[in-house]
């Protein structure tokens, strides 16, 4: 870093929506060659700020300066033309189109008469793909790629223009560790070229690994910028949420009960093979592995959403066949799915109705839904999970991510399951809510639930689990107790390295 002119500077940005002051005088300076973390809880204003920067929203007050020249941006395309590139968190790819077309989406190279210049497009794309060391080429259809590779396509978009600033919004959410390394190399490469990088993430270990400075937002206002080297996780967290967090490993143990769920030799086509494990009451079993290792698919099979091709499932020692979620629910299995908005919630429905949906058949007064009973269930779990909402009539689509997730968890807790499966319980959720949810999972186990936690975040698995099942490519590589697990042996296991080879 040097004292050159900043590539991008935001000055006292104010953005109000009817009744809300979403951004309240936010300033941010991005120097060339700097990786600048932007942190804050969900709802702190990060995405609003990014929308202002991208020209999707117009700020009420304040200025945006690119290379110290004030600019007004009215569209993402204009932002890109000025050298500001966004890498979005949610995959925004057109699956039917080729990799090349996706990378150059919105700015395909043209020949005369609006024709696409395919030759140029492919040459340029392949050059970028080479830098990213990926195993596909410009013509591959994006829909045929794995999620991780699709994320790489998204990242490749940053390399198409002579960027001055690149904004990464949770780029690692679905990347494997190997791909993360490539991504960090790409970021380092950009850095060397003097590109400024804004890096948004909830993952502390990444922030501390690659960023130079950290700016923090809270409740729409700017809380300050610190040099990464001069601070630690605790200090940053405190800046973000105004209190301390418990980030220790799980060491508390409670009495384990009987085996609630046992799986023997479960297979499902190519998705996973020969899966055997058991979960006791009072125990949290973590499933750790790369995206695509088959963890979610196991959960879906247990929940009756997929038919296993072989193997048996035993609940409380009884062999069971589960054909549908309805079956699973009636046998006491609950699943908090991975995709909150797509699978967990009906966004256009209110909080109460979402929460009581699985048991609406049982909450009856005569032929009608017993609305009073529903409200009391909602109230009970709102209090217990500390869900912040103006009332049960609020549409869940209007809640923040953390509160939405709590609604989903509340939905399944109110079913009083004997086996609770939570898939990526804190994806896209801020630090504060994250730790609340972790504590909740521990508490539930203490109350005698058998809990399975599927997660791609190592600190999370380490924090909540009594035992950890490491998966690689559809198989269980190894099962660790919380005493024997270390970060190293866990990473080896999920990378497909068996203990023998490692030794």
């Amino acid at each position, binding site marked *: 870093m040097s004292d050159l002119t900043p590539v991008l500077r935001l000055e006292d940005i104010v953005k109000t929506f009817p009744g809300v002051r979403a951004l309240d005088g936010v300033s941010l300076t991005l120097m060339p060659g700097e990786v600048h973390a932007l942190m804050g809880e969900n709802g702190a204003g990060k995405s609003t700020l990014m929308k202002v920067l991208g020209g999707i929203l117009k700020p009420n007050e304040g200025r945006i300066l690119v290379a110290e020249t004030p600019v007004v941006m009215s569209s993402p395309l204009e932002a890109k033309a000025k050298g500001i590139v966004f890498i979005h968190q949610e995959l925004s790819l057109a699956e039917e*189109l080729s990799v090349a077309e996706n990378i150059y989406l919105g700015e395909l190279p043209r020949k005369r008469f609006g024709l696409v210049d395919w030759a140029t497009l492919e040459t340029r794309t392949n050059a970028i793909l080479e830098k990213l060391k990926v195993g596909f080429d410009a013509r591959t259809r994006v829909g045929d790629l794995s999620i991780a590779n699709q994320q790489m396509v998204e990242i490749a978009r940053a390399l198409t223009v002579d960027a001055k600033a690149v904004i990464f919004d949770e780029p690692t959410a679905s990347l494997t560790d190997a791909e993360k390394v490539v991504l960090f190399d790409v970021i380092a490469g950009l850095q060397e070229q003097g590109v400024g990088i804004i890096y948004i993430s909830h993952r502390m270990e990444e922030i501390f690994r690659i960023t130079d400075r950290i700016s923090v937002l809270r409740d729409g206002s700017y809380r300050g910028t610190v040099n990464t080297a001069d601070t630690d996780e605790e200090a940053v967290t405190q800046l973000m949420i105004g209190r301390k967090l418990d980030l220790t490993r799980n060491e508390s143990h409670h009495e384990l009960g009987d085996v609630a769920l046992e799986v023997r030799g479960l297979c499902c086509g190519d998705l996973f093979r020969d899966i055997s494990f058991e979960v006791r009451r009072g125990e949290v079993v973590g499933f750790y592995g790369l995206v695509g290792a088959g963890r979610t698919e196991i959960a879906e099979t247990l929940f009756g959403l997929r038919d296993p091709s072989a193997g048996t499932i035993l609940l409380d020692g009884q062999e069971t066949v589960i054909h549908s979620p309805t079956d699973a629910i009636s046998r006491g299995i609950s699943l908090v799915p991975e995709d909150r908005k797509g699978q967990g919630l009906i966004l256009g429905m209110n909080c109460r109705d979402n929460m009581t949906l699985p048991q609406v058949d049982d909450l009856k007064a005569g032929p009608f839904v017993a609305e009073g009973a529903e409200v009391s269930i909602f109230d009970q779990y709102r209090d217990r999970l500390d869900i912040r909402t103006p009332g049960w009539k609020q549409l869940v689509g209007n809640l923040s991510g953390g509160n939405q997730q709590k609604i989903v968890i509340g939905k399944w807790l109110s079913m009083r399951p004997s086996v609770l499966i939570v898939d990526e319980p804190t994806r896209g959720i801020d630090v504060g809510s994250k730790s609340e949810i972790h504590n909740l999972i521990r508490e539930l186990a203490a109350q005698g639930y058998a809990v399975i936690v599927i997660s791609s975040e190592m600190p999370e698995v380490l924090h909540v689990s009594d035992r950890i099942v490491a998966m690689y490519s559809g198989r269980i590589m190894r099962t660790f107790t919380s005493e024997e697990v270390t970060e190293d042996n866990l990473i080896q296991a999920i990378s497909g390295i068996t203990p023998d080879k490692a030794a």
Partner: protein
Amino acid sequence: MQPGTLSTFLKRGAIWGFIVLELIFFSIAGEFLSVSDKAFINVDNMLLLFKQSAPIGIIAMGMTIIMVNGNIDLSVGATYAISAIVMLDAMTWSMFAGLGDGVIPVAWILALLTGVALGALNGLIVWKTGVDAFIVTLGSMLGYRGLVFMYNGEQPTSHLNWTLVDFAEAQWLGLHTATWFLLVVTAAVWFLMNKTVHGRNAYAIGNNRSAAVNAGIRVGPHMVINFMIIGFLAALSAVVFYSESGSVNPNDGELYELWVITAVVLGGTKLTGGAGSIISTFGGVLAIQLLRKGLSHIGADTETVNLVIGLILIAVLFLDRQLNTKGKEELKV
């Protein structure tokens, strides 16, 4: 060859397989059931097949664009009728009286402009109000039909110009005029959708609208352009057809939207947008016309025709889904 190529081929090729099946079936059934001595697969008959596919086929090309773009247009039948009226009526306007047969291109252009304008109106409403295209065009299907009747009451609008008829009935290199139009439109739309930035953006918008918006693609203008194209093609279809027939009933083109959508869906275009192929739509159009032709070749009566066409539509949809399932381990949602 990548894995899945065979199944992709099957999916893409399904419509052509269906066409071959139809040809075989009607040839054999025709031997027993047809009154005619002519074989079903006869060069003349196949040339006619192309010609008769033109009215629906030309519009279907536009519908493919609209559906790839993630919209739908139910008003094409009415647009078709209005354009036809404009074309036929314009030839009688006194201001063009001095032009002689020179009035023909003028009338054509007026008709095409009418189609473009009506399409643009639909597109602008969809863009500016944000109302779903299905609802907007369901409304204009009624509204445009109202305009048709306003033009000339319940009377047909007619103007028989034999120069025009001779042109429309001509055969060049063995193919009828209408066939040429259909082929040129197919080629042009294929080119548009596969080679131009506009076409690729249309795919991107239908595939993932928010991605397109994030990438700075202006969704609205692209949609308006596509609605103008389908309006143009509906008008072109009218121009081609009514140049030959010279008279339009105010209820002409009713139910065309349904036949057109059927052809497009048979060709494998997704109703959700983002995927679809012009060549397969061409196959879908041929498949429907072949079905009609075949059923009349073997002398099926009205009730059978209705029943068979309805059930085949469902059967093809079912087959298409079967080809697209991933097998037993698929997620059950």
